[in-house]
């Protein structure tokens, strides 16, 4: 019984296989043609905008000693610190841990992140808490009474 069926089945199987591949392939192509545009749509387009290279912070006299100010650098916050001794430093104000915005803590003389109690010293080095690396430093230039910050290359 099985022996006599065997020769007749071979062409049927290959025909069936052929149809299976055509239909299966078609189904995959169809699925892809739907999924691809949808998945691409989910990804937001890159934000346009001018690359900021330098920003004016303000007058030197407006920055009190032993204080920190947050300024806009493009769409990112930068913290400008004037130490008690009077020297100026600027760092990215975005905590390297989980993206919170840091602040200057006068009482400890450190840069502090409220979210997870991360601390950085006044050279931007991570000294305590969860931050994995130092804050990115910005260059500070004083021209007359004006303070400018720019990206360190």
């Amino acid at each position, binding site marked *: 019984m099985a022996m006599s069926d065997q020769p007749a089945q071979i062409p049927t199987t290959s025909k069936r296989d052929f149809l299976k591949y055509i239909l299966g392939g078609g189904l995959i192509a169809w699925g892809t043609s739907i999924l691809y545009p949808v998945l691409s749509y*989910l*990804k*937001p387009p890159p*934000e346009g905008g001018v690359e900021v290279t330098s920003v004016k912070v303000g007058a030197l006299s407006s920055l009190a000693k032993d204080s920190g100010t*947050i*300024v*806009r650098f493009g*769409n990112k*916050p930068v*913290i400008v610190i004037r130490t008690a001794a009077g020297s100026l430093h600027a760092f990215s*104000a975005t905590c390297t*841990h*989980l*993206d*919170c*915005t*840091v*602040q200057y803590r006068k009482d400890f003389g450190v840069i502090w*992140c*409220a*979210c*997870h*109690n991360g601390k950085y010293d006044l050279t931007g080095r*991570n000294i305590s*808490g*969860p*931050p*994995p*690396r130092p804050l990115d430093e910005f260059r500070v230039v004083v021209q007359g009474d004006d303070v400018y910050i720019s990206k360190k290359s």
Partner: protein
Amino acid sequence: MSGIWQKTYQWIDERVQLGNLVEFMGKKYVPLHRGSIWYYFGGVSLFLFIIQVVTGILLLLYYKGGEELAFESIQFVMSRVAFGWLIRSIHSWAANLFILAAFIHMFSVFFEKAYRPPREITWVTGMMMFFLALGFGFSGYLLPWNELAFFATKVGTDIAGVIPLIGKPIMVFLRGGEEVTGATLTRFFGFHVAVLPGIFTVFLAVHLLLVQRQGMSVPLGHEEVHGPSEKAMPFFPNFLLRDLLLWLLVLNLLAILAVFFPWELGKKADAFAPAPAGIRPEWYFLFMFQTLKYFPGKIWFLDGELLGIGLFGVVALLWVMVPFWDRKSALGKRNRLLNYIGIAGVFYIIVFTILGWLL
């Protein structure tokens, strides 16, 4: 009066055979034992979910999305719209009570081992709803666009970004860009009012259908109840009335909380202000938040955050899959070890939540 009802019933019955359903309802019994009180928490969760749907729709009538509109529109709801403060306060409080009720429901099911066969799917759908509830909480928290929510969202989405390979695309997808901006608000709004409710409803339907179809689980060592018995209470009307009474009590509690402890709006989010001191996430994320605080930046060569999230991920997966690996309970034997693990889990959550609150 009864004539009209009878006619309406008959009209529907002729078309969809209501008789079967009524007969089924009449045969439903709720087992009575020392743990029967825990049966109520599923119903309480459902009730609070319904409240969320209703108050959520009411808030939708006035809410406006967008960086320059969201905070102001909630301010408008709370100060100008009649009873707006109440609706918003109820929505916020009910969200918290909902998650609390779901926590209790989940742990009671866990300790009673109600997930054992044949109720694995009920457990898994319940867990999916629990995760969706956390998603509801996280996405809804941002919608008023206040300072606390802004940083909570920054941290929460940044945590997703820690996962290697797929983390960054997920973060960008959630934020609608590299940063948390108005684009994030738009997306979260969509998740909160359309995506999550849609998915949640499907799981809820399956969950409730299974509970009706399989009847209530009984603790190990008790006989399942499928008909009138001394150790059971008819669902209709006896249990249902008790359910409704408890719902009424919950509604009262909700009203007291919403009126006497109105939910605050806080300060409007400012992307160029430092994170405020004392910032912390909602209480149901607090134990995870506190745990991550204790992880140093680097552990050996691994990223501390990644290790913490990985651990929570593994625990969550094991928790969801418990019906499939707890062979002992499946065979009807007591699994003491699992009870101890559960108690340790509850203890851990409570202690870390308190620590997170105090520190």
